[in-house]
């Protein structure tokens, strides 16, 4: 049985008349590095905030390290690290003051990691946070999330607005934490930077309109998802009923279908059945993401898998 680090069951959350989460189902296995993807407003931040107890869901069940987030006691909270989208509050505090305030709250605080991050980002801990660069401020936020050496690390857009070099450093630090086999740490992070995701995530979950569109190991997505360019002699059919159809677009005599779970033989058979010529394309994560979230109809198709 796979141990579950976090789980959403039919979670709903509404802000005013906006549904941020509408029946989110997602389970995060322990020891995995899961990237949460989705367009702006897809519900990523709300989902993560619910996990750490910063939002109370309207309905549904949540569990994190085996418990309901709002009932976590101190020792359980010490097992979770979190970097919010907005980073660190207290702009007038010095980095040192903030770190010395947080460190004693955690029994497994790593002083070595703290030093490593401060020196890597050349942060003078005597300076106030508001006087640090954006990258350095985010690094302090990351430091506060990773130095407790948490069992579950939750990062909301850790790399947004950072330059490529700083992002590399961030990835290194997160990978360093994951590399410890025995600890089997879990990382959940949201990101729009798909090239980073492809480096460090082993699973990918795509949210769309507050629901889960698809959740798979990244390798499986790349191995099993294909974009088919179907070329018809006459007009393409009105409808295409296919199992594993993720998205469908039509242009003149062509259809572009993104499908999951078809091997070469199955694709050949499909083309013969449809009396169409077919070109097959393997997709990187970026193309796959765009195919999946680009049109509203695909959401229903993918939910059916």
């Amino acid at each position: 049985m796979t141990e579950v680090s976090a789980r959403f069951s039919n979670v709903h959350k509404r802000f005013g008349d906006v549904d941020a989460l509408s029946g989110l189902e997602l389970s995060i296995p322990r020891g995995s590095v899961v990237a949460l993807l989705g367009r702006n407003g897809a519900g990523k931040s709300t989902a993560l905030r619910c996990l750490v107890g910063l939002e109370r869901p309207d309905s549904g069940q949540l569990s994190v390290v085996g418990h309901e987030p709002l009932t976590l006691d101190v020792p359980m909270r010490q097992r979770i690290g979190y970097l919010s989208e907005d980073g660190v509050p207290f702009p007038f505090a010095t980095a040192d003051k903030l770190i010395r305030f947080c460190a004693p709250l955690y029994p497994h605080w790593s002083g070595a990691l703290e030093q490593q991050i401060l020196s890597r980002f050349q942060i003078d801990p005597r300076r106030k946070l508001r006087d640090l660069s954006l990258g350095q401020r985010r690094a302090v936020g990351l430091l506060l999330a990773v130095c407790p050496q948490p069992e579950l690390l939750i990062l909301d857009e850790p790399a947004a607005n950072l330059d490529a070099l700083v992002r590399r450093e961030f990835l290194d630090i997160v990978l360093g934490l994951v590399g410890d086999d025995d600890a089997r740490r879990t990382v959940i992070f949201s990101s729009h930077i798909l090239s980073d995701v492809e480096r460090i995530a082993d699973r990918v979950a795509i949210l769309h309109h507050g629901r889960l569109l698809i959740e798979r190991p990244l390798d499986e997505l790349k191995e099993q998802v294909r974009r088919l360019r179907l070329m018809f002699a006459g007009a393409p059919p009105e409808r295409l009923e296919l199992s594993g159809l993720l998205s469908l677009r039509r242009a003149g005599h062509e259809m572009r279908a993104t499908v999951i779970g078809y091997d070469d033989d199955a694709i050949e058979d499909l083309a013969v059945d449809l009396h169409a010529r077919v070109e097959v394309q393997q997709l990187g994560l970026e193309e796959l993401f765009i195919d999946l979230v680009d049109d509203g109809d695909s959401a229903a198709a993918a939910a059916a898998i």
Partner: protein
Amino acid sequence: MFLAVDPSSGLPVYRQIMDQVRRMIVAGRLAPGDRLPSIRELATTLQINPLTVGKAYGELEREGSVEMRRGLGMFVRAARTIPRSVRSDRERVPAGVAEGARRFVLEAAQAGLDRAEAIKQIDNAWRDLLMLDRSRSMGRAR
């Protein structure tokens, strides 16, 4: 060891690692008894998730190309234990290089390079590869 991956490719990263390690084994660039970098080392140099490297090594071990020696690391196995399917790639490796060269020459010609300029590109790329490899081994020694 010359290894480079393209995480944005449609080919999963663990498959890229497997293909490249196999190619080096088949071509003799990795000999039986050679040690592969540790999972952690390779994940750090390539800046990828250690789980991905672990998966590639696991698959290579399962097919019999490499073996885990407890506490010592991952080693290339004796030639006879390497599966026929991998060994039979021997002819395909030079063919793959030739194919890559044809693609490169085509692209260079289309871009308007002459022969000397194209060769210069290869020289530069070759030097970059050696430098990358050297900086990695220095990184390890540190």
